[in-house]
Structure formats: structure tokens, C-alpha cells
């Protein structure tokens, strides 16, 4: 019997390439990984439990802090779940603005992924271009919502404010300019021999296995399964827009990269359509429990004042019932399982974070590869620990 010796190596929680506080315990034979165990929970804040004693509106800033790289998509998922339970729908203009914000969130998330993923593998140039363009998206977030990373712009029943002319102008300019920048990313990476050697046939997973692990989003589409919540269960007027779902064939790091790069293009396509066809009308539903009366109304009308006190101090009563509602976040299917008991607080809010399931597939993806490839694989799955640990 051979005495096979393995070495245990802790990767993380403070490793710069794990994008947060993910810890992976690697068992190494030489430089080959024979076993990998992801350890999570270093960023656990108990968001699901905190939600149980907050009113429905107060939960909104917490959802920003799940996948903080693409915050608006989380706002949208949460708001859609509550709206579905209340049986209301946001006005058309609000839905379009939501789509714009969610696609901006996707672009921001992918920018962060592209920059850091390339930086991990050794292509240092890309992060400068990615962050230059991410800054433009953040400026637009700031213009419409007042905050850059955690906009809290999408509210239950609509959106917080109407779009300004300046915002629309900026979006048009960005839509026109961005395809050129995207071409630049392709020029830097797609055909580069070092890049292809580092990413091709690394961390490959078959479509069937990817489904069994519960992978969603670009990681699943990279394996060849055309599943996108925006197409399969359209929400928030996504069926008004003409866009395509990119899929890969090999399920490796390179295919996941190509899928995300194509998603940039499709997202900018959706934004272009939404901003050109932006309908006119209100941006908040007229449900008296949700529409906060304006300051002048409050100061001249007693009933409006009482309504403002009820909305903000007591909260919105949401009917009894339970439902699951999902949106396509930047990393995959972001689901909210909401149980209401008729009061102003949810009885239970379970968040289906896409990257949690990707983390569970890590042992399968890592085994058999080199340590250096582990960095590429972890980068390609695009973890955000705020979402995994919640």
C-alpha cells in the first residue's frame, strides 16, 4: 500500500481572490486538488431574521446589501414578491425604470466580475477599463436614485422618484458609447493566448450536473442550458423587449466568460429599448397604503397627514399567504420566499441566493485541477459573499 500524503491548504477567508470572505479548505496532492470544502458564514448578518421584525418598507435597504455588486436587482426581486402577495402591480413607467435599473445592476455586477476575474488570473489591464465604465453606470445610479452602490430606488408599488431629463440624456449617451468599450474588452481578452490557456477546459461541468447542483444564471447558461427567468417567467414588462439568451456549450471558465460578455451586449440592448419607449404616467401605484403623500399635501390636508403617519410608523399590512417569486439577478435566479401573516412584518422571508448554490458546486468543479486554476474557477462563478451568508 502506498502511503499517499496530502497537504491541507486554507484558501481564504482573507484571500484576495475569493472576493470576500469565502474560505475553501483544499486538500492537495502536490499541486493537484484532491478535495475541496467551502466554508461559509463569515459575513453572516442574520438578514432573514432581522426582516421578521422590520416593516415591509424597512426591509428594502437590507436587500441592497445582499448582492451589493448588483443591488437594484435585489430590490426588484423583493418588491415584486411583496407586490405579488398584495395583488398589486406597479405602473408601466415604473416597470420600465425598474428594468433599466436592474440591467444597470447586471452591467455593474459583470464589470466587477470582469475586472477582478481578469486581475486574479493575471491580466491586470482590464480592471482599469472595467471600473472606468462602471463609474459611468454608478453616476447614472446617483443621478436618478441619489446613491451609487446601494440605490434603494425600487420601492414596493413602484419606484422612488421619476427619471430626470439629465438621467435620460446620460443613459442615451452611455448606450451609444458602451458597445465600443465592450469591443475593447474583447480585444484585450477573448483571443489572447494566455487568457484562453488559463480558462479553456478549466472547471468544466456538464449541463445535467449543473442542473443537479442547482446552478443558475451565467454559470448554468455556460453549460448549455438556456434558462433565464426573464424569458421563462417574464416579470416587470420584460416580454416587451427583444433580447437573446447567450448559452455556451462546454461549461468551462471560458464559456462562462463568453456568456457574461454577451450579456453585457443584451443588457445594453434592453436599456436602449426601454429608454426609447419609456411610457409616460405615474411612477408609483395609487394604493393609499403605499403612495407616500407629498409634503404640500401633508401640510394642507389632515387625512394625508394621518396617512403619512400610518404608512411610515405602522407599515403596510400585507395579506396572509405564502409565495415564491424569482428574478434574474446578475448571478442567477434570485428568489424570495415570503410568508405573510396579515401583519406589517413578514412571518418569514427566505432568500434563494444564486451564488449559495454555486458555492455548493465548488468541490465538484475544483477537484482534479491545480491550485492556480482554483482562482480562475472561483472567479468565474462570481461569488458575492453578502448574498451567500446573508
Amino acid at each position, binding site marked *: 500500500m502506498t502511503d499517499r500524503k496530502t497537504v491541507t491548504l486554507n484558501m481564504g477567508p482573507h484571500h484576495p481572490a475569493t472576493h470576500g470572505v469565502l474560505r475553501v479548505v483544499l486538500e492537495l496532492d502536490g499541486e493537484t486538488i484532491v478535495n475541496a470544502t467551502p466554508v461559509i458564514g463569515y459575513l453572516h448578518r442574520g438578514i432573514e431574521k432581522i426582516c421578521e421584525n422590520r416593516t415591509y418598507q424597512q426591509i428594502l435597504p437590507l436587500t441592497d446589501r445582499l448582492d451589493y455588486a448588483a443591488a437594484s436587482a435585489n430590490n426588484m426581486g423583493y418588491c415584486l414578491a411583496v407586490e405579488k402577495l398584495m395583488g398589486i402591480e406597479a405602473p408601466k413607467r415604473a416597470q420600465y425604470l425598474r428594468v433599466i435599473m436592474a440591467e444597470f445592476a447586471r452591467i455593474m455586477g459583470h464589470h466587477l466580475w470582469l475586472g477582478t476575474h481578469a486581475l486574479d488570473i493575471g491580466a491586470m489591464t482590464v480592471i482599469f477599463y472595467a471600473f472606468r465604465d462602471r463609474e459611468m453606470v454608478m453616476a447614472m445610479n446617483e443621478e436618478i*436614485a441619489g446613491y451609487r452602490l446601494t440605490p434603494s430606488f425600487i420601492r414596493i408599488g413602484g419606484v422612488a422618484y421619476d427619471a430626470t431629463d439629465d438621467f435620460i440624456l446620460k443613459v442615451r449617451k452611455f448606450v451609444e458609447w458602451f458597445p465600443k468599450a465592450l469591443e475593447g474588452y474583447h*480585444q484585450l481578452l477573448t483571443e489572447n*493566448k494566455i487568457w484562453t490557456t488559463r480558462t479553456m477546459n478549466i472547471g468544466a461541468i456538464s449541463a445535467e450536473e449543473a442542473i443537479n447542483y442547482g446552478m443558475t444564471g451565467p454559470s448554468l447558461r455556460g453549460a448549455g442550458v438556456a434558462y433565464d427567468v426573464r424569458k421563462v417567467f417574464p416579470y416587470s414588462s420584460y416580454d416587451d423587449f427583444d433580447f437573446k439568451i447567450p448559452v455556451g456549450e462546454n461549461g468551462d471558465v471560458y464559456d462562462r466568460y463568453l456568456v457574461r460578455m454577451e450579456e453585457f451586449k443584451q443588457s445594453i440592448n434592453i436599456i436602449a429599448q426601454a429608454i426609447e419607449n419609456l411610457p409616460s404616467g405615474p411612477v408609483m401605484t395609487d394604493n393609499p397604503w403605499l403612495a407616500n403623500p407629498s409634503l404640500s399635501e401633508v401640510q394642507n390636508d389632515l387625512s394625508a397627514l394621518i396617512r403619512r403617519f400610518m404608512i411610515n410608523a405602522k407599515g403596510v399590512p400585507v395579506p396572509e399567504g405564502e409565495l415564491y417569486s424569482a428574478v434574474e439577478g446578475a448571478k442567477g435566479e434570485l428568489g424570495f420566499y415570503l410568508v405573510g401573516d396579515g401583519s406589517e412584518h413578514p412571518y418569514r422571508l427566505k432568500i434563494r441566493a444564486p451564488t449559495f448554490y454555486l458555492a455548493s458546486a465548488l468541490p465538484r468543479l475544483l477537484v482534479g485541477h491545480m491550485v492556480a486554476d482554483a482562482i480562475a474557477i472561483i472567479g468565474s462563478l462570481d461569488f458575492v459573499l453578502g448574498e451567500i451568508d446573508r
Partner: protein
Amino acid sequence: MEKSDIIVVSKNRGEKGKYVKPFLKGLQYTLGNFFSRPVTVQYPEEKTERSERWRGLHRLNVDEKGELKCVACGLCAAVCPSQAITVVASEEEWGTRHPEKFVVNELRCVFCGFCQEACPKGAISLTKVYEYVNYSREDFLFDISRLKTTGEKWDC
């Protein structure tokens, strides 16, 4: 989902054996950007303009007479998701209310702006000030005298 909705991206996987040409193409992009105007802002010396909706440090607004608009109803404290606001009300003999104590804990605050949306008097608003530095944690408990002057002198 229909077949026309799908793009197979892996068709344009890079060809094998090519090394120099893609590498030069990448260098060409970098060189093209080398002569363009830099987008970097030299932060402490230069600052960019914040938007009108920016949610920065809190400010307690005053009326024409220079008195606080706040009537200490406590709605901002009730709506605050992170429980950063403490209000203690006091009432004059003739029934006017004003805050005896109004403390915003800027370390707890998540700058969601719910307090300024809730306030029925327009008394609290979020300014464009985003730089705040102090030596101790206690200094981040902003009281009335501090909140009245947010954005007036060089901040914190």
C-alpha cells in the same frame, strides 16, 4: 423559450496556435487609450459634483425665525430601518413641541433617506456632504447643534 431567442456564444472560441496577433491587438487598445484624456479625478484636491438627490449627512432645517422646523413627532425615528435616530420631545405650556434631544448616530445610519421622505414638516433632510471623519465613536452621535450646521463649515 424559442430557439431564435438563444445565441450560442461558444462558436467563436479563439483559434489554436495564434499568439502574437491577439497580443498585439490588446496592446493596440492600450496604446489607443494611452493618448486619450485621463478619466481619473485627483480626489482630495478635485471633487466631482454630487447629484441633487444625493443622500449624505443629515441636516435639521430651520424656519425664517431661525427656529427648528422639527416638532419632535418621532416619525423619522419610527421609520428608520437601522434605529439611528433618537428623539426626545418637550412641550411648552401653550402646546408647542420641539425636540429636547435629537441625536443621529451616523455610524448606524445606512443613508436610505427614509427619514426625509417621512418627515411631515420637511424638517430633516439629507445634504450633499459625504465626508465625515472623527477621532472617536462618540463624535459620530450628531446632536441638534451639530445637525443645524451640516454643510456650513468644512465638515467634521
